């Protein structure tokens, strides 16, 4: 084997006349782990989709092992040895773990040989640290992280020459990510070319051999990871250094505006949670998946019907077992599932911005069109959205801007007193992230109680006035103002006992 295993040569692709990828070229050698970095909408996934046979390039070519490859479909790509973990979670909840492992696999025999398949599945699960799962278990019963791990295990198990992972770790905990890295390294050591896409820059630098940075569909640089630092990567991605947020910490002493949560419980998920959250401050729930952090938010938002306990806002009891009750009490929720539980993707940006306040936009049961337009426009301005996109479907916005719409929807509402956000910047690039953090900071300053959950250390430290670490459905510790990242990480992953 002489030349590189994968040659991407002047690949280009546009959507509706707007270029998403412009003449991108790079190569990946056998055994190399090659990162693709870039801010949201830079074109990473578009490159990935062309490489994996989901999307036809407008121009350019892909050469695999010295031969020009026409990747017409996923099947063709698989036959040529390209395995994929898509950016979107792509396991089917209606199937078992085992069935998912072999679904669409061109090497799977037409007639199922069950015993052998179960054995192989077992091995793969163990390798991923998923020894608690049974091959016959429905994926619907798995947590999001477990599902992601199943998908990764599947891709890594295929007899592939090229393995592409598009943001595989976005929903994973630190510990889970480690296992994935180990597996990726094993696959690379076997002689595979690995293409790895992630927004988590430290992990990129740790895992990968080479990094290609994309910006606005163009390749900016390709360099050995050893020659890069996080800061230099960011400069490449954005073309400038982002300014860090300075945080103001002025607590509102007025406890009458507080959100009082007492003994909040969700059977099987949240053991006991008590917190008095004051207006004007941002509370950060630090916890990996399954820690209960996101369950606190979901319970408060009325999405856990089995939640018990007592919740008071401004000295009034909150009917928190239904979303309507929570909303009526003044609680707004931004889910971590933007597509499924967040935006109305086919509706225009303006319609999404006003979706939750239609009842306040007119007299009685009517919606006043003029008021609606004005509200949408001022919200777009507030959220930093391009005003010329107000009439476009949200679907056509980049991930970062979609998230701004999602957050912006709950801003400037006199009836909202509490803002709950689950992973407020999931899959959002650094620029978009800073903008969203600014929005949340402003919201707190305006007198809202802000509570968010996150798995990202940086975000927790940057945004949280009070940080609560959580693990196994309980609060591990509370850090009012400033905390050490290492301490947080230890709390989240090991709890107090290890201390």
């Amino acid at each position: 084997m002489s030349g590189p295993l994968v040659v991407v040569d002047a690949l280009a692709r546009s959507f509706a006349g707007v270029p998403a990828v412009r003449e991108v070229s790079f190569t990946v050698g056998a055994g190399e782990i090659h990162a693709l970095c870039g801010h949201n909408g830079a074109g990473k996934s578009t490159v990935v989709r062309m490489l994996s046979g989901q999307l036809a390039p407008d121009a350019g070519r892909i050469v695999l092992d010295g031969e020009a490859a026409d990747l017409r479909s996923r099947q063709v790509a698989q036959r040529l040895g390209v395995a994929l973990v898509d950016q979107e979670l792509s396991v089917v909840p209606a199937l078992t773990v085992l069935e998912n492992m072999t679904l669409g696999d061109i090497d799977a025999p037409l007639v199922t040989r069950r015993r052998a398949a179960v054995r192989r599945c077992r091995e793969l699960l163990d390798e991923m640290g998923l020894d608690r799962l049974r091959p016959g278990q429905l994926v619907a019963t798995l947590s999001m992280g477990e599902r992601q791990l199943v998908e990764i295990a599947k891709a890594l198990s295929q007899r592939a020459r090229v393995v592409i992972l598009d943001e595989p770790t976005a929903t994973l905990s630190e510990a889970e990510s480690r296992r994935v890295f180990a597996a990726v390294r094993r696959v690379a050591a076997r002689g595979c070319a690995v293409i790895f896409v992630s927004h988590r820059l430290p992990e990129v630098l740790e895992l990968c051999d080479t990094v290609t940075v994309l910006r606005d569909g163009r390749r900016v640089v390709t360099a050995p990871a050893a020659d890069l630092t996080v800061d230099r990567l960011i400069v490449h991605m954005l073309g400038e250094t982002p300014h860090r947020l300075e945080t103001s910490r002025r607590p509102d002493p007025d406890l009458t505006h507080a959100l009082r949560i007492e003994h909040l419980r969700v059977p099987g998920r949240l053991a006991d949670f008590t917190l008095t959250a004051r207006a004007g401050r941002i509370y950060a729930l630090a916890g990996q998946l399954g820690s209960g952090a996101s369950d606190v938010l979901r319970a408060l938002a009325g999405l856990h019907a089995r939640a018990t306990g007592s919740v008071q806002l401004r000295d009034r009891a909150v009917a928190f077992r239904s979303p309507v009750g929570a909303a009526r009490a003044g609680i707004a929720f931004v889910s971590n599932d933007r597509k499924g539980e967040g935006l109305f993707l086919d509706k225009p940006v303006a319609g999404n911005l006003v979706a939750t306040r239609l009842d306040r936009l007119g007299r009685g049961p009517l919606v006043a069109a003029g008021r609606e337009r004005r509200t949408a426009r001022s919200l777009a301005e507030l959220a930093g959205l391009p005003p010329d996109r107000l009439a476009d479907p949200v679907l056509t916005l980049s991930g970062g801007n979609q998230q701004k719409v999602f957050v912006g929807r709950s801003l400037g509402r006199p009836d909202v007193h509490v803002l709950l956000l689950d992973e407020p910047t999931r899959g959002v690039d650094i620029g978009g992230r800073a903008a969203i953090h600014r929005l949340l900071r402003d919201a707190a300053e305006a007198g809202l109680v802000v509570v968010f959950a996150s798995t990202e250390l940086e975000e927790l430290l940057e945004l949280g006035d009070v940080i609560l670490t959580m693990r196994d459905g309980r609060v591990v510790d509370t850090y009012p103002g400033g905390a050490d990242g290492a301490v947080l990480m230890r709390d989240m992953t090991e709890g107090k006992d290890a201390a």
Partner: protein
Amino acid sequence: MRAAIRQERLVPAAALLLVVVAFVLTPLGTGSPLTTFDVYNALQGFAQIGLLALAVGLTMIAGEFDLSVVGTYAVGGMIAVQAGQSSAVLGLLVAVAVGAAVGAVQGALIAWLRVPSVPVTLAAYIALLGLAYAISGGLSVTFTNRDATLWVDQTVAGVFSPRSLLTLAAFVLVAVVLGGTRLGAELRAIGGDRRASRVAGVRVERKLVLLFTTSGTLAALGGALLSFSFASANPDPGLRPLLIAAVAALLGGASLAGGRGTATGLLAGALSVALLAQIVAVAYLPDYSTQLFYAALLAVVVAIDSPGLRRALERVRARTRPVEA
């Protein structure tokens, strides 16, 4: 969550058990013992709707709904009779070929143009109904091939007939194919999450065309066998066969949301519905009581399958027992 896996087996098992028990207990009400003929006749009823239920059920598993099967059923019966006057086998083959073609065309529209199946199959149903009318002049057509009529319904081993055996065979064949090959999982994957199946490498389009071709074939076969048995073909069977097939598929553990169901479940569903009709006949219950039974059974299916109802119950439970360790 876990209920999902159990449900596709629990519902058909419970439905069948319930109906079988009721069937066995009918002598208590009527005073006359059950005979093998009662079982034979129930299986005849099963033969009448079984293939239709299988066709509808399969499309449901893949997250689609084929309304046109009842049109294909009518056209299939009509063609089998008209083309089969001299040779029943020929008639059967022509009918099945037409059914397959009709299904394939719809499948192609649904798969390649990605039009949802309800609009397409509704329109196709109307057109097929018209076709059945047009080729028969709106009249029932008599099947003069007496041998075939007698053959399909002759008693085999006391309780079976060639017709019910063919229907059973179709179920077994589908069960083997779905259970023993990748096809079963792929069908459920398509119904469960189409995008993910595509990303995983399932050839969704081809599978959909295959699926609708199969449902067209099964429906036409069902219609043909029925016409042979009746010695006549009726251009307009009405919507009832479709609704009963849907009831059978739903009792068989399939769900309109897709991704759920097995061939054995569908078999149990179809048998339940057929037995229920037989109970109504044996116990001399009024005809409309079948409708009320279907309504009651479907109400249970609806209740089991309603996430909001489950949540409401949980909410009540959480409120009545607020603090627990």
